[in-house]
Protein backbone atom coordinates (compact mmCIF):
# COMPACT_ATOMS: atom_id res chain seq x y z
CA UNK A 1 0.00 0.00 0.00
CA UNK A 2 2.89 2.34 0.80
CA UNK A 3 4.57 1.75 -2.54
CA UNK A 4 1.22 1.96 -4.36
CA UNK A 5 0.50 5.26 -2.60
CA UNK A 6 3.87 6.67 -3.60
CA UNK A 7 3.59 5.38 -7.18
CA UNK A 8 0.13 6.90 -7.53
CA UNK A 9 1.63 10.38 -7.22
CA UNK A 10 4.92 10.02 -9.09
CA UNK A 11 5.75 13.70 -9.53
CA UNK A 12 5.23 14.59 -5.90
CA UNK A 13 7.05 11.47 -4.74
CA UNK A 14 9.98 12.20 -7.06
CA UNK A 15 10.20 15.85 -5.99
CA UNK A 16 10.06 14.82 -2.32
CA UNK A 17 12.77 12.21 -2.81
CA UNK A 18 14.95 14.72 -4.65
CA UNK A 19 14.44 17.31 -1.92
CA UNK A 20 15.56 14.82 0.73
CA UNK A 21 18.47 13.90 -1.53
CA UNK A 22 19.32 17.62 -1.74
CA UNK A 23 19.26 17.77 2.05
CA UNK A 24 21.71 14.88 2.24
CA UNK A 25 23.91 16.34 -0.52
CA UNK A 26 23.97 19.72 1.19
CA UNK A 27 25.11 18.12 4.44
CA UNK A 28 27.65 15.72 2.95
CA UNK A 29 29.21 18.02 0.35
CA UNK A 30 29.39 21.18 2.44
CA UNK A 31 30.57 19.37 5.55
CA UNK A 32 32.84 17.21 3.39
CA UNK A 33 34.31 20.28 1.73
CA UNK A 34 34.81 22.07 5.02
CA UNK A 35 36.36 19.14 6.80
CA UNK A 36 38.27 18.19 3.66
CA UNK A 37 39.91 21.59 3.43
CA UNK A 38 40.46 21.65 7.17
CA UNK A 39 41.87 18.13 7.18
CA UNK A 40 44.11 18.80 4.23
CA UNK A 41 45.33 22.08 5.73
CA UNK A 42 46.05 20.25 8.97
CA UNK A 43 48.08 17.60 7.20
CA UNK A 44 49.98 20.14 5.15
CA UNK A 45 50.74 22.30 8.17
CA UNK A 46 51.93 19.27 10.10
CA UNK A 47 54.10 18.50 7.07
CA UNK A 48 56.13 21.64 7.74
CA UNK A 49 57.85 19.57 10.38
CA UNK A 50 57.96 22.15 13.18
CA UNK A 51 57.18 21.30 16.77
CA UNK A 52 55.39 24.47 17.83
CA UNK A 53 53.17 27.02 16.09
CA UNK A 54 53.30 30.51 17.52
CA UNK A 55 50.69 33.10 16.59
CA UNK A 56 50.06 36.68 17.72
CA UNK A 57 47.31 37.30 20.28
CA UNK A 58 43.72 36.96 18.98
CA UNK A 59 44.73 34.98 15.90
CA UNK A 60 42.50 32.46 14.21
CA UNK A 61 43.47 28.83 13.94
CA UNK A 62 42.50 29.21 10.30
CA UNK A 63 45.70 30.71 9.04
CA UNK A 64 43.94 32.04 5.95
CA UNK A 65 41.52 34.02 8.08
CA UNK A 66 44.12 35.49 10.37
CA UNK A 67 45.45 38.96 9.64
CA UNK A 68 47.16 39.67 12.92
CA UNK A 69 50.93 39.95 12.89
CA UNK A 70 53.86 40.12 15.28
CA UNK A 71 57.33 41.69 14.98
CA UNK A 72 59.95 39.34 13.62
CA UNK A 73 62.43 40.66 16.20
CA UNK A 74 60.56 38.60 18.76
CA UNK A 75 62.48 35.58 17.58
CA UNK A 76 65.64 37.03 19.06
CA UNK A 77 64.02 36.75 22.48
CA UNK A 78 62.77 33.25 21.67
CA UNK A 79 66.23 32.12 20.65
CA UNK A 80 67.38 32.84 24.18
CA UNK A 81 65.12 30.08 25.43
CA UNK A 82 66.74 26.64 25.85
CA UNK A 83 66.25 23.91 23.25
CA UNK A 84 65.15 26.14 20.33
CA UNK A 85 66.71 24.74 17.16
CA UNK A 86 65.15 26.93 14.49
CA UNK A 87 62.46 29.58 14.10
CA UNK A 88 60.82 30.24 10.72
CA UNK A 89 58.69 33.39 10.49
CA UNK A 90 55.93 33.16 7.88
CA UNK A 91 53.71 35.92 6.55
CA UNK A 92 50.50 34.43 5.17
CA UNK A 93 48.48 35.84 2.31
CA UNK A 94 45.26 34.63 0.81
CA UNK A 95 44.70 34.50 -2.90
CA UNK A 96 40.96 34.37 -3.41
CA UNK A 97 40.83 35.03 -7.15
CA UNK A 98 40.38 31.31 -7.88
CA UNK A 99 39.33 29.49 -4.75
CA UNK A 100 40.96 30.12 -1.41
CA UNK A 101 44.71 29.60 -1.61
CA UNK A 102 47.04 30.37 1.20
CA UNK A 103 50.45 31.76 0.28
CA UNK A 104 53.41 31.53 2.60
CA UNK A 105 55.93 34.34 2.59
CA UNK A 106 59.07 32.61 3.85
CA UNK A 107 62.76 33.09 4.52
CA UNK A 108 64.25 30.14 2.64
CA UNK A 109 67.02 29.53 5.18
CA UNK A 110 64.87 29.45 8.30
CA UNK A 111 62.00 27.62 6.60
CA UNK A 112 64.38 24.96 5.34
CA UNK A 113 65.92 24.65 8.82
CA UNK A 114 62.49 23.90 10.26
CA UNK A 115 61.09 21.80 7.41
CA UNK A 116 64.23 20.03 6.20
CA UNK A 117 63.83 21.72 2.84
CA UNK A 118 61.61 21.23 -0.18
CA UNK A 119 61.60 18.20 -2.45
CA UNK A 120 62.08 19.71 -5.88
CA UNK A 121 60.21 18.53 -8.97
CA UNK A 122 61.40 21.31 -11.26
CA UNK A 123 63.22 24.64 -11.21
CA UNK A 124 64.66 26.46 -8.23
CA UNK A 125 63.81 28.74 -5.34
CA UNK A 126 62.61 32.29 -5.97
CA UNK A 127 65.39 34.78 -6.49
CA UNK A 128 63.33 37.85 -7.28
CA UNK A 129 60.35 39.53 -5.60
CA UNK A 130 58.07 38.53 -8.47
CA UNK A 131 58.92 34.84 -8.36
CA UNK A 132 56.85 32.11 -6.76
CA UNK A 133 57.39 28.46 -5.93
CA UNK A 134 54.31 26.29 -6.35
CA UNK A 135 53.59 22.74 -5.25
CA UNK A 136 52.93 19.91 -7.69
CA UNK A 137 49.17 19.78 -7.02
CA UNK A 138 48.77 23.50 -7.71
CA UNK A 139 50.92 23.17 -10.84
CA UNK A 140 48.78 20.32 -12.10
CA UNK A 141 45.50 21.99 -11.19
CA UNK A 142 46.39 25.26 -12.84
CA UNK A 143 48.41 23.71 -15.63
CA UNK A 144 51.46 25.82 -14.87
CA UNK A 145 55.14 25.02 -14.85
CA UNK A 146 58.46 26.80 -14.44
CA UNK A 147 58.62 30.17 -16.20
CA UNK A 148 54.84 30.44 -16.49
CA UNK A 149 53.15 33.47 -15.04
CA UNK A 150 50.43 33.31 -12.39
CA UNK A 151 48.40 36.13 -10.92
CA UNK A 152 48.25 36.15 -7.13
CA UNK A 153 46.57 38.88 -5.07
CA UNK A 154 46.51 41.17 -8.12
CA UNK A 155 50.25 40.70 -8.71
CA UNK A 156 51.89 38.78 -11.52
CA UNK A 157 54.41 36.16 -10.46
CA UNK A 158 56.71 33.99 -12.49
CA UNK A 159 56.90 30.35 -11.41
CA UNK A 160 60.52 29.66 -10.48
CA UNK A 161 60.07 26.11 -9.26
CA UNK A 162 57.70 23.24 -8.54
CA UNK A 163 58.02 21.34 -5.25
CA UNK A 164 56.43 18.31 -3.65
CA UNK A 165 53.20 19.21 -1.81
CA UNK A 166 52.82 19.00 1.94
CA UNK A 167 54.85 21.88 3.36
CA UNK A 168 52.15 24.12 4.73
CA UNK A 169 51.04 26.05 1.66
CA UNK A 170 50.83 25.43 -2.07
CA UNK A 171 52.46 28.75 -2.95
CA UNK A 172 55.65 30.24 -1.54
CA UNK A 173 57.07 33.70 -2.08
CA UNK A 174 59.80 35.58 -0.27
CA UNK A 175 58.90 36.89 3.19
CA UNK A 176 59.93 40.40 2.17
CA UNK A 177 57.56 40.37 -0.82
CA UNK A 178 54.73 39.06 1.36
CA UNK A 179 55.38 41.78 3.95
CA UNK A 180 55.33 44.46 1.27
CA UNK A 181 52.13 43.11 -0.26
CA UNK A 182 50.40 43.16 3.11
CA UNK A 183 52.03 46.36 4.36
CA UNK A 184 53.46 44.50 7.33
CA UNK A 185 57.15 45.27 6.99
CA UNK A 186 59.24 43.55 9.65
CA UNK A 187 56.31 41.43 10.78
CA UNK A 188 55.04 37.87 10.41
CA UNK A 189 51.72 36.08 10.84
CA UNK A 190 53.24 33.07 12.56
CA UNK A 191 56.43 31.42 13.66
CA UNK A 192 57.16 27.75 13.10
CA UNK A 193 59.47 26.65 15.89
CA UNK A 194 61.69 23.56 15.79
CA UNK A 195 63.07 22.19 19.01
CA UNK A 196 66.30 20.32 19.49
CA UNK A 197 64.34 17.78 21.54
CA UNK A 198 60.72 17.23 20.35
CA UNK A 199 59.87 15.65 23.71
CA UNK A 200 60.32 19.07 25.34
CA UNK A 201 57.29 20.55 23.56
CA UNK A 202 55.15 21.14 26.65
CA UNK A 203 58.06 22.62 28.60
CA UNK A 204 59.01 24.85 25.69
CA UNK A 205 55.41 25.99 25.30
CA UNK A 206 55.25 26.93 28.96
CA UNK A 207 58.49 28.89 28.59
CA UNK A 208 57.22 30.67 25.47
CA UNK A 209 53.94 31.52 27.16
CA UNK A 210 55.89 32.94 30.07
CA UNK A 211 57.89 35.07 27.70
CA UNK A 212 55.09 36.14 25.36
CA UNK A 213 51.92 36.48 27.35
CA UNK A 214 48.68 36.26 25.36
CA UNK A 215 50.27 34.75 22.28
CA UNK A 216 48.85 31.61 20.71
CA UNK A 217 51.25 28.73 21.31
CA UNK A 218 50.21 25.26 20.31
CA UNK A 219 52.05 22.04 19.49
CA UNK A 220 51.91 21.64 15.71
CA UNK A 221 50.77 18.05 16.08
CA UNK A 222 47.83 19.18 18.19
CA UNK A 223 47.02 21.93 15.69
CA UNK A 224 46.95 19.32 12.93
CA UNK A 225 44.80 16.98 15.00
CA UNK A 226 42.40 19.82 15.71
CA UNK A 227 42.17 20.72 12.03
CA UNK A 228 41.58 17.07 11.11
CA UNK A 229 38.97 16.58 13.80
CA UNK A 230 35.27 16.25 12.92
CA UNK A 231 34.31 18.42 15.84
CA UNK A 232 36.41 21.45 15.40
CA UNK A 233 35.00 24.20 17.62
CA UNK A 234 35.63 26.88 15.01
CA UNK A 235 33.69 24.90 12.39
CA UNK A 236 30.88 23.70 14.61
CA UNK A 237 28.76 26.82 14.22
CA UNK A 238 29.13 26.76 10.45
CA UNK A 239 28.41 23.04 10.15
CA UNK A 240 25.47 23.33 12.55
CA UNK A 241 24.04 26.12 10.41
CA UNK A 242 24.37 24.05 7.24
CA UNK A 243 22.81 21.02 8.90
CA UNK A 244 19.98 23.15 10.30
CA UNK A 245 19.21 24.67 6.89
CA UNK A 246 19.34 21.22 5.28
CA UNK A 247 17.09 19.82 7.98
CA UNK A 248 14.62 22.68 7.46
CA UNK A 249 14.50 21.95 3.72
CA UNK A 250 13.80 18.28 4.43
CA UNK A 251 11.20 18.96 7.10
CA UNK A 252 9.31 21.51 4.98
CA UNK A 253 9.28 19.32 1.89
CA UNK A 254 8.15 16.22 3.78
CA UNK A 255 5.56 18.27 5.64
CA UNK A 256 4.18 19.71 2.41
CA UNK A 257 4.23 16.35 0.69
CA UNK A 258 2.54 14.49 3.53
CA UNK A 259 0.08 17.28 4.24
CA UNK A 260 -1.13 17.38 0.64
CA UNK A 261 -1.12 13.58 0.61
CA UNK A 262 -3.45 13.28 3.58
CA UNK A 263 -5.69 16.05 2.25
CA UNK A 264 -5.95 14.29 -1.11
CA UNK A 265 -6.42 10.94 0.56
CA UNK A 266 -8.93 11.96 3.19
CA UNK A 267 -11.49 9.62 1.70
CA UNK A 268 -8.96 6.75 1.61
CA UNK A 269 -8.24 7.36 5.29
CA UNK A 270 -11.99 7.23 5.91
CA UNK A 271 -12.17 3.91 4.05
CA UNK A 272 -9.33 2.47 6.12
CA UNK A 273 -10.98 3.68 9.30
CA UNK A 274 -14.26 2.08 8.23
CA UNK A 275 -12.36 -1.18 7.74
CA UNK A 276 -11.25 -0.97 11.34
CA UNK A 277 -7.87 0.67 10.93
CA UNK A 278 -6.83 2.29 14.19
CA UNK A 279 -5.40 5.78 14.52
CA UNK A 280 -2.04 4.14 15.17
CA UNK A 281 -2.36 2.28 11.87
CA UNK A 282 -2.97 5.57 10.01
CA UNK A 283 -0.06 7.31 11.76
CA UNK A 284 2.20 4.34 10.99
CA UNK A 285 1.10 4.35 7.35
CA UNK A 286 1.95 8.04 6.91
CA UNK A 287 5.26 7.55 8.73
CA UNK A 288 6.12 4.56 6.58
CA UNK A 289 5.46 6.51 3.39
CA UNK A 290 7.55 9.35 4.72
CA UNK A 291 10.30 6.90 5.74
CA UNK A 292 10.28 5.35 2.25
CA UNK A 293 10.70 8.82 0.71
CA UNK A 294 13.48 9.71 3.15
CA UNK A 295 15.29 6.43 2.66
CA UNK A 296 15.18 6.72 -1.12
CA UNK A 297 16.24 10.38 -0.84
CA UNK A 298 19.08 9.48 1.51
CA UNK A 299 20.38 6.76 -0.81
CA UNK A 300 20.23 9.02 -3.87
CA UNK A 301 21.75 11.84 -1.81
CA UNK A 302 24.69 9.71 -0.68
CA UNK A 303 25.36 8.44 -4.20
CA UNK A 304 25.05 11.93 -5.66
CA UNK A 305 27.33 13.39 -2.98
CA UNK A 306 30.12 11.03 -3.97
CA UNK A 307 29.59 11.89 -7.65
CA UNK A 308 29.54 15.63 -6.94
CA UNK A 309 32.60 15.32 -4.69
CA UNK A 310 34.46 13.45 -7.39
CA UNK A 311 33.44 16.02 -10.02
CA UNK A 312 34.48 18.95 -7.83
CA UNK A 313 37.84 17.37 -7.07
CA UNK A 314 38.36 16.63 -10.77
CA UNK A 315 37.69 20.27 -11.69
CA UNK A 316 39.48 21.72 -8.64
CA UNK A 317 42.30 19.32 -7.70
CA UNK A 318 43.42 21.62 -4.88
CA UNK A 319 40.17 20.96 -3.06
CA UNK A 320 39.56 17.94 -0.87
CA UNK A 321 36.06 16.73 -0.02
CA UNK A 322 36.00 14.33 2.87
CA UNK A 323 32.80 12.24 3.00
CA UNK A 324 33.20 10.10 6.06
CA UNK A 325 31.06 7.13 7.22
CA UNK A 326 30.40 9.16 10.34
CA UNK A 327 28.80 12.00 8.36
CA UNK A 328 26.98 9.58 6.05
CA UNK A 329 25.34 8.09 9.13
CA UNK A 330 24.53 11.54 10.44
CA UNK A 331 23.08 12.63 7.08
CA UNK A 332 20.82 9.55 7.01
CA UNK A 333 19.74 10.27 10.59
CA UNK A 334 18.99 13.88 9.66
CA UNK A 335 17.00 12.71 6.61
CA UNK A 336 14.97 10.31 8.74
CA UNK A 337 14.58 13.00 11.39
CA UNK A 338 13.22 15.42 8.81
CA UNK A 339 10.79 12.69 7.73
CA UNK A 340 9.61 12.16 11.30
CA UNK A 341 9.26 15.87 12.08
CA UNK A 342 7.75 16.68 8.69
CA UNK A 343 5.12 13.95 8.84
CA UNK A 344 4.28 14.29 12.53
CA UNK A 345 1.50 16.86 12.18
CA UNK A 346 0.03 15.46 8.92
CA UNK A 347 -0.09 11.95 10.35
CA UNK A 348 -1.75 13.07 13.58
CA UNK A 349 -4.21 15.18 11.59
CA UNK A 350 -5.01 12.17 9.42
CA UNK A 351 -5.47 9.93 12.43
CA UNK A 352 -7.79 12.39 14.12
CA UNK A 353 -10.12 12.61 11.15
CA UNK A 354 -13.64 11.55 11.87
CA UNK A 355 -14.33 8.41 9.78
CA UNK A 356 -17.80 9.59 8.75
CA UNK A 357 -16.58 13.02 7.67
CA UNK A 358 -13.57 11.49 5.92
CA UNK A 359 -15.81 9.17 3.93
CA UNK A 360 -17.99 12.10 2.88
CA UNK A 361 -14.93 14.03 1.61
CA UNK A 362 -15.06 14.64 -2.12
Amino acid at each position, binding site marked *: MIIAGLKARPVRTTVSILAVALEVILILVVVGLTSGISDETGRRTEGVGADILLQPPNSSLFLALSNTTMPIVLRERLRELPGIKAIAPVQTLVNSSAGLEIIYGIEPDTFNAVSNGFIWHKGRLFNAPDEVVVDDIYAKAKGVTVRDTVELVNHKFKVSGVVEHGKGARLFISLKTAQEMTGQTGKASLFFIKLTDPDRVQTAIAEIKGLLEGYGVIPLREYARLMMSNSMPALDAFISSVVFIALCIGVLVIFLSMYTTITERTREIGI*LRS*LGASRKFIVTLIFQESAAICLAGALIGIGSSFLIARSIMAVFPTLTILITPDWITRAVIFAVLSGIIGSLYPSLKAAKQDPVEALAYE
Partner: protein
Amino acid sequence: MKTLLETAGLRKIYAAGKIQIEALRGVDLRIREGELVAIMGPSGCGKSTLMHVLGAMTKPTAGKVVIDGQEVSGMGDNELTRIRRDKIGFVFQKFNLLPTLTARANIDIARYIHGNGVRSNGHDEHLSEILQLLMIENMMGRKPSELSGGEQQRVAIARAVANQPAILLADEPTGSLDSKNSEIVLNMFRELNHKFKQTVILVTHNPELAAFTDRLIEMRDGVIVGDNDSFSWDTVGEIRGQTDEFPFFEVQK
Protein backbone atom coordinates in the same frame (compact mmCIF):
# COMPACT_ATOMS: atom_id res chain seq x y z
CA MET B 1 -32.42 -16.44 17.23
CA LYS B 2 -29.63 -14.46 18.83
CA THR B 3 -30.00 -10.69 18.91
CA LEU B 4 -27.04 -9.18 17.10
CA LEU B 5 -27.89 -5.50 17.14
CA GLU B 6 -30.02 -3.61 19.56
CA THR B 7 -30.67 0.06 20.09
CA ALA B 8 -32.80 1.81 22.68
CA GLY B 9 -33.72 5.49 22.73
CA LEU B 10 -31.01 6.22 20.22
CA ARG B 11 -30.48 9.91 19.57
CA LYS B 12 -27.90 11.67 17.47
CA ILE B 13 -27.55 15.42 17.32
CA TYR B 14 -25.15 17.10 14.89
CA ALA B 15 -23.92 20.62 15.43
CA ALA B 16 -23.70 22.63 12.23
CA GLY B 17 -22.32 25.93 13.48
CA LYS B 18 -24.85 27.30 15.92
CA ILE B 19 -27.61 25.09 14.56
CA GLN B 20 -28.21 21.65 16.01
CA ILE B 21 -29.63 18.98 13.77
CA GLU B 22 -31.31 16.04 15.42
CA ALA B 23 -30.69 13.22 12.96
CA LEU B 24 -31.95 10.41 15.20
CA ARG B 25 -34.75 11.09 17.65
CA GLY B 26 -35.12 7.96 19.71
CA VAL B 27 -34.60 4.83 17.66
CA ASP B 28 -35.47 1.47 19.18
CA LEU B 29 -34.39 -1.44 17.05
CA ARG B 30 -33.51 -5.09 17.37
CA ILE B 31 -31.88 -7.15 14.62
CA ARG B 32 -31.26 -10.85 14.94
CA GLU B 33 -28.45 -12.98 13.61
CA GLY B 34 -28.94 -14.08 10.00
CA GLU B 35 -31.54 -11.44 9.12
CA LEU B 36 -31.63 -9.62 5.81
CA VAL B 37 -33.00 -6.21 6.64
CA ALA B 38 -33.66 -3.05 4.67
CA ILE B 39 -33.75 0.30 6.43
CA MET B 40 -35.60 2.61 4.15
CA GLY B 41 -36.74 6.18 4.05
CA PRO B 42 -36.43 9.43 2.17
CA SER B 43 -33.22 11.43 2.04
CA GLY B 44 -32.42 13.15 5.31
CA CYS B 45 -34.56 10.80 7.42
CA GLY B 46 -31.52 9.69 9.41
CA LYS B 47 -30.97 6.25 7.92
CA SER B 48 -27.32 6.86 7.03
CA THR B 49 -26.70 8.29 10.49
CA LEU B 50 -28.32 5.19 11.93
CA MET B 51 -26.02 3.04 9.79
CA HIS B 52 -22.97 4.94 11.03
CA VAL B 53 -24.04 4.45 14.63
CA LEU B 54 -24.87 0.77 14.08
CA GLY B 55 -21.48 0.36 12.38
CA ALA B 56 -19.59 1.95 15.28
CA MET B 57 -18.43 4.74 13.01
CA THR B 58 -19.83 7.40 15.29
CA LYS B 59 -21.18 7.55 18.82
CA PRO B 60 -24.81 8.36 19.61
CA THR B 61 -25.59 11.52 21.53
CA ALA B 62 -27.87 9.49 23.80
CA GLY B 63 -29.30 6.02 24.01
CA LYS B 64 -27.96 2.53 23.97
CA VAL B 65 -26.36 0.53 21.16
CA VAL B 66 -25.47 -3.10 21.69
CA ILE B 67 -23.48 -4.82 18.95
CA ASP B 68 -23.09 -8.57 19.34
CA GLY B 69 -23.54 -8.30 23.08
CA GLN B 70 -21.28 -5.28 23.58
CA GLU B 71 -22.65 -1.92 24.60
CA VAL B 72 -20.75 0.50 22.36
CA SER B 73 -22.32 3.88 23.05
CA GLY B 74 -19.84 4.67 25.81
CA MET B 75 -16.82 3.28 24.02
CA GLY B 76 -13.78 5.34 23.05
CA ASP B 77 -12.25 5.53 19.60
CA ASN B 78 -9.98 2.53 20.06
CA GLU B 79 -12.79 0.26 21.19
CA LEU B 80 -15.11 1.48 18.42
CA THR B 81 -12.31 0.78 15.95
CA ARG B 82 -11.99 -2.74 17.34
CA ILE B 83 -15.74 -3.28 16.97
CA ARG B 84 -15.61 -2.08 13.34
CA ARG B 85 -12.63 -4.30 12.67
CA ASP B 86 -14.03 -7.43 14.29
CA LYS B 87 -17.80 -7.18 13.86
CA ILE B 88 -18.70 -4.93 10.96
CA GLY B 89 -18.36 -5.00 7.19
CA PHE B 90 -19.27 -1.89 5.20
CA VAL B 91 -20.46 -1.55 1.62
CA PHE B 92 -20.88 1.97 0.31
CA GLN B 93 -22.78 3.57 -2.54
CA LYS B 94 -19.57 4.85 -4.13
CA PHE B 95 -17.79 1.51 -3.64
CA ASN B 96 -14.94 3.23 -1.78
CA LEU B 97 -12.24 0.95 -3.05
CA LEU B 98 -8.70 2.22 -2.61
CA PRO B 99 -7.89 3.46 -6.13
CA THR B 100 -4.16 2.76 -6.03
CA LEU B 101 -4.59 -0.90 -5.12
CA THR B 102 -5.73 -3.89 -7.14
CA ALA B 103 -8.97 -5.65 -6.27
CA ARG B 104 -6.95 -8.33 -4.48
CA ALA B 105 -4.95 -5.77 -2.51
CA ASN B 106 -8.17 -4.00 -1.54
CA ILE B 107 -9.41 -7.23 0.00
CA ASP B 108 -6.03 -8.04 1.50
CA ILE B 109 -5.75 -4.68 3.22
CA ALA B 110 -9.03 -5.40 5.03
CA ARG B 111 -7.71 -8.79 6.06
CA TYR B 112 -4.40 -7.26 7.10
CA ILE B 113 -6.18 -4.68 9.26
CA HIS B 114 -8.33 -7.43 10.73
CA GLY B 115 -5.13 -9.20 11.59
CA ASN B 116 -5.70 -12.37 9.67
CA GLY B 117 -2.63 -11.87 7.55
CA VAL B 118 -2.59 -12.30 3.82
CA ARG B 119 -1.29 -15.85 3.93
CA SER B 120 -3.77 -17.16 6.46
CA ASN B 121 -4.88 -20.55 5.20
CA GLY B 122 -8.04 -20.82 7.27
CA HIS B 123 -9.75 -17.90 5.64
CA ASP B 124 -8.42 -18.33 2.13
CA GLU B 125 -10.96 -21.04 1.54
CA HIS B 126 -13.76 -18.83 2.74
CA LEU B 127 -12.50 -15.99 0.59
CA SER B 128 -12.28 -18.24 -2.45
CA GLU B 129 -15.91 -19.18 -1.95
CA ILE B 130 -16.87 -15.53 -1.63
CA LEU B 131 -14.96 -14.58 -4.77
CA GLN B 132 -16.58 -17.45 -6.60
CA LEU B 133 -20.02 -16.47 -5.40
CA LEU B 134 -19.43 -12.87 -6.43
CA MET B 135 -17.90 -14.02 -9.74
CA ILE B 136 -14.82 -11.84 -9.38
CA GLU B 137 -12.02 -14.42 -9.06
CA ASN B 138 -10.60 -13.36 -12.41
CA MET B 139 -10.61 -9.66 -11.67
CA MET B 140 -8.28 -9.68 -8.69
CA GLY B 141 -5.33 -8.21 -10.56
CA ARG B 142 -7.27 -5.21 -11.82
CA LYS B 143 -7.41 -1.78 -10.27
CA PRO B 144 -10.78 -0.17 -9.53
CA SER B 145 -10.42 2.09 -12.57
CA GLU B 146 -10.30 -1.05 -14.74
CA LEU B 147 -13.54 -2.44 -13.33
CA SER B 148 -17.17 -1.58 -14.10
CA GLY B 149 -19.36 -0.15 -11.35
CA GLY B 150 -21.00 -3.51 -10.73
CA GLU B 151 -17.63 -5.25 -10.55
CA GLN B 152 -16.28 -2.63 -8.18
CA GLN B 153 -19.27 -3.08 -5.91
CA ARG B 154 -18.79 -6.83 -5.90
CA VAL B 155 -15.14 -6.37 -4.92
CA ALA B 156 -16.29 -4.01 -2.18
CA ILE B 157 -18.72 -6.68 -0.95
CA ALA B 158 -15.94 -9.28 -0.98
CA ARG B 159 -13.76 -6.90 1.03
CA ALA B 160 -16.58 -6.29 3.49
CA VAL B 161 -17.24 -9.99 4.14
CA ALA B 162 -13.66 -11.28 3.82
CA ASN B 163 -13.23 -11.22 7.58
CA GLN B 164 -16.61 -12.84 8.22
CA PRO B 165 -18.10 -9.88 10.07
CA ALA B 166 -21.09 -10.38 12.31
CA ILE B 167 -22.97 -7.65 10.46
CA LEU B 168 -22.76 -6.43 6.89
CA LEU B 169 -23.94 -2.85 6.56
CA ALA B 170 -24.62 -1.57 3.07
CA ASP B 171 -25.38 2.10 2.47
CA GLU B 172 -27.26 2.60 -0.81
CA PRO B 173 -25.30 -0.28 -2.37
CA THR B 174 -27.09 0.03 -5.71
CA GLY B 175 -27.18 3.82 -5.76
CA SER B 176 -24.43 4.08 -8.36
CA LEU B 177 -25.43 1.06 -10.43
CA ASP B 178 -27.73 0.48 -13.40
CA SER B 179 -30.73 -1.76 -12.93
CA LYS B 180 -29.02 -4.88 -14.24
CA ASN B 181 -26.01 -4.53 -11.95
CA SER B 182 -28.29 -3.52 -9.09
CA GLU B 183 -30.11 -6.80 -9.42
CA ILE B 184 -26.86 -8.77 -9.56
CA VAL B 185 -25.55 -7.05 -6.45
CA LEU B 186 -28.80 -7.48 -4.54
CA ASN B 187 -28.96 -11.14 -5.45
CA MET B 188 -25.48 -11.48 -4.05
CA PHE B 189 -26.50 -9.96 -0.77
CA ARG B 190 -29.31 -12.51 -0.65
CA GLU B 191 -26.90 -15.32 -1.54
CA LEU B 192 -24.50 -14.25 1.19
CA ASN B 193 -27.40 -14.18 3.61
CA HIS B 194 -28.73 -17.58 2.58
CA LYS B 195 -25.47 -19.43 2.04
CA PHE B 196 -23.33 -18.00 4.85
CA LYS B 197 -26.12 -16.86 7.19
CA GLN B 198 -24.62 -13.40 6.92
CA THR B 199 -26.60 -10.73 8.72
CA VAL B 200 -27.16 -7.97 6.18
CA ILE B 201 -28.58 -4.50 6.75
CA LEU B 202 -29.26 -2.51 3.61
CA VAL B 203 -29.83 1.20 3.96
CA THR B 204 -31.65 2.70 1.01
CA HIS B 205 -34.20 5.15 -0.21
CA ASN B 206 -35.10 2.80 -3.07
CA PRO B 207 -38.37 0.93 -2.42
CA GLU B 208 -37.45 -1.76 -4.94
CA LEU B 209 -34.84 -3.08 -2.56
CA ALA B 210 -37.59 -4.19 -0.23
CA ALA B 211 -38.41 -7.07 -2.51
CA PHE B 212 -34.98 -8.52 -1.80
CA THR B 213 -35.16 -8.39 1.98
CA ASP B 214 -36.96 -10.37 4.62
CA ARG B 215 -37.63 -7.39 6.79
CA LEU B 216 -38.26 -3.75 6.09
CA ILE B 217 -37.72 -0.93 8.55
CA GLU B 218 -39.03 2.46 7.50
CA MET B 219 -37.59 5.67 8.87
CA ARG B 220 -38.79 9.21 8.72
CA ASP B 221 -37.53 12.36 10.50
CA GLY B 222 -35.11 10.43 12.65
CA VAL B 223 -37.48 7.81 13.98
CA ILE B 224 -38.61 4.36 12.88
CA VAL B 225 -42.11 4.64 11.53
CA GLY B 226 -42.52 1.12 10.20
CA ASP B 227 -41.12 -2.32 10.82
CA ASN B 228 -42.61 -5.55 9.53
CA ASP B 229 -40.75 -7.49 12.18
CA SER B 230 -42.94 -9.51 14.53
CA PHE B 231 -40.79 -8.38 17.42
CA SER B 232 -41.54 -4.73 16.84
CA TRP B 233 -45.26 -4.50 17.53
CA ASP B 234 -44.81 -1.56 19.83
CA THR B 235 -43.83 0.74 16.99
CA VAL B 236 -46.54 -0.36 14.63
CA GLY B 237 -49.40 1.45 16.34
CA GLU B 238 -47.65 4.77 15.91
CA ILE B 239 -46.94 4.34 12.27
CA ARG B 240 -50.28 3.07 11.11
CA GLY B 241 -51.53 5.25 8.30
CA GLN B 242 -48.09 6.57 7.40
CA THR B 243 -47.14 3.73 5.13
CA ASP B 244 -49.42 4.40 2.20
CA GLU B 245 -46.63 5.64 0.02
CA PHE B 246 -44.92 2.26 0.43
CA PRO B 247 -47.57 -0.07 -1.01
CA PHE B 248 -45.20 -3.01 -1.07
CA PHE B 249 -44.85 -2.83 2.65
CA GLU B 250 -47.80 -3.83 4.66
CA VAL B 251 -47.60 -3.49 8.39
CA GLN B 252 -48.74 -6.67 10.05
CA LYS B 253 -50.57 -6.80 13.28
